């Protein structure tokens, strides 16, 4: 059908001022969406690296009243695990740090030299599989019946909680933006139908199908979304890149996991195209539905 992508077809609906408004609204909305998506993806990476880190970390506790037996068992465990394949680092938690950890619970008085204190050994694994954890447990149990292996539960980390909150927030923002964009498109389509009522009536009288008319709108709205989307996305990507540079300077903690990988940049760059596609479908549906109510 030759109301196709020709110049005359584009001229059929002429309203340049409205187009400019649409482009800017779309630019702002897609800027925010890309930013939220960037935050979301960065947070996913941070969470993943934190999970890996926590999953590879164990604590072996030796809880024994007899301090001599306790220290012997501790030494034996340290000895066995040192250089054990899959173990990255083994280190006994210094008693002072243990005291500092327990002080809030026991108070100054509780830290009595007579009080049997457990020893703790931090173990970092390069292989965090269940089998590996079982092997470490077996070694510890061999050294002492009172050795307990604690796997650091990922959900215990408050940082991890915060990251989850951030991810959900980013997701919610993206969904809100999608809904808002859909609403803007429906509004634009409806306003367009109103503005061009006379032209559309003439087109119908000359034998245009609803699909032909809808196509005029959907092409225009998709194009406006795409142009605005590209502007917004470029701005958001520039901002993401700037934030990455700043993060790199901080260079520590869970936040350092928030780097965007090449694949992430591609996903972010695809967002305006996704939005343009959605805008096109929304425009098509709303125009066809509105026209279906006329003769």
């Amino acid at each position, binding site marked *: 059908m*030759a*109301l196709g992508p*020709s110049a*005359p077809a584009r*001229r059929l609906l002429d309203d340049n001022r409205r187009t400019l408004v649409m482009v800017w609204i779309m630019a702002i909305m897609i800027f925010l969406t890309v930013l939220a998506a960037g935050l979301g993806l960065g947070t996913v990476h941070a969470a993943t690296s934190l999970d890996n880190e926590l999953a590879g970390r164990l604590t072996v506790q030796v809880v024994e009243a007899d301090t001599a037996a306790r220290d012997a068992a501790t030494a034996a465990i340290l000895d066995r695990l040192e250089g054990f394949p899959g173990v990255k680092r083994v280190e006994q938690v210094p008693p002072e740090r243990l005291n500092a950890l327990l002080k809030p619970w026991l108070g100054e008085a509780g830290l009595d030299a007579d009080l049997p204190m457990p020893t703790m050994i931090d173990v970092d694994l390069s292989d965090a599989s269940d089998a590996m954890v079982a092997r470490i447990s077996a070694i510890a149990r061999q050294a002492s019946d009172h050795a307990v292996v604690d796997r650091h539960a990922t959900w215990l980390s408050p940082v991890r909680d915060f990251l989850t909150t951030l991810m959900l927030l980013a997701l919610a923002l993206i969904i809100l933006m999608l809904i808002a964009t859909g609403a803007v498109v429906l509004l634009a389509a409806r306003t367009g139908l109103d503005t061009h009522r*006379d032209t559309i009536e*003439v*087109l119908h009288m000359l*034998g245009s199908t609803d699909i032909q008319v809808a196509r005029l709108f959907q092409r225009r709205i998709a194009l406006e979304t795409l142009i605005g989307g590209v502007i917004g996305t470029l701005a958001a990507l520039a901002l993401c890149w700037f934030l990455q540079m700043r993060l790199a300077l901080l260079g520590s903690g869970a936040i350092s996991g928030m780097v965007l990988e090449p694949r992430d940049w591609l996903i972010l760059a695809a967002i305006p195209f996704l939005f343009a596609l959605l805008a096109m479908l929304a425009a098509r549906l709303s125009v066809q539905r509105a026209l279906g109510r006329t*003769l």
Partner: protein
Amino acid sequence: MANIVQFENVGLRYGTGPETLSDVSFTLAAGAFYFLTGASGAGKTSLLKLLYLARRPTRGVIRLFGEDAVTLPRKRLPGFRRRIGVVFQDFRLVPHLSAYDNIALPLRIAGMPESEIEAPVREMLAWVGLTERGRAKPPTLSGGEQQRIAIARAVIGRPEILVADEPTGNVDPAMAERLLHLFESLNRLGTTIVVATHDFHLINRVGHAQMMRLDNGRISDPTGLLRHPPRRVEE
């Protein structure tokens, strides 16, 4: 096909008002030339709107091209409308399209490739004497010029029926005659022509034309005035 249009006891009511058209019955033969006359407000435009499928009647039967046009599903309307050329009383040109693009519109809608559009559009512009005005936008054209563009747009698709609602209202007598010749040559090519007008001078120029007269929304047969009244459908 003998009858291209058939109206049977057609009535039309706008909203809850009185009937604008009542008991309208007639048939139009394919390839004939018809004038529709009647005082202003008699219902000529309303009748033509039913004919070119801009409205559905409130009662009665309308058959177009041998098919029931009253219950025609919406999806089939475009196909029917492409077979009918319309010169609207108020022209209905698209104001932001050039004269050229307005005339080309039916061909583009019908899906004709761009390369095949220029020649017929140029030919139509020449036919209505507006070769020089192809790039002009309708608001910059005079009423008569707009009317000629509207006629060019109505006939360019070689419709089976041409419906013209007072198509010579805004042009001088010489141009009116020229446009009438245009309709006649189209008629000779087989197009059924229906022209609403109260210009009796014009009507008298087409010897073989038949005439229908509307009075207060009814087809009337006043003695003496009618030449070749179209055959009424007998119930």
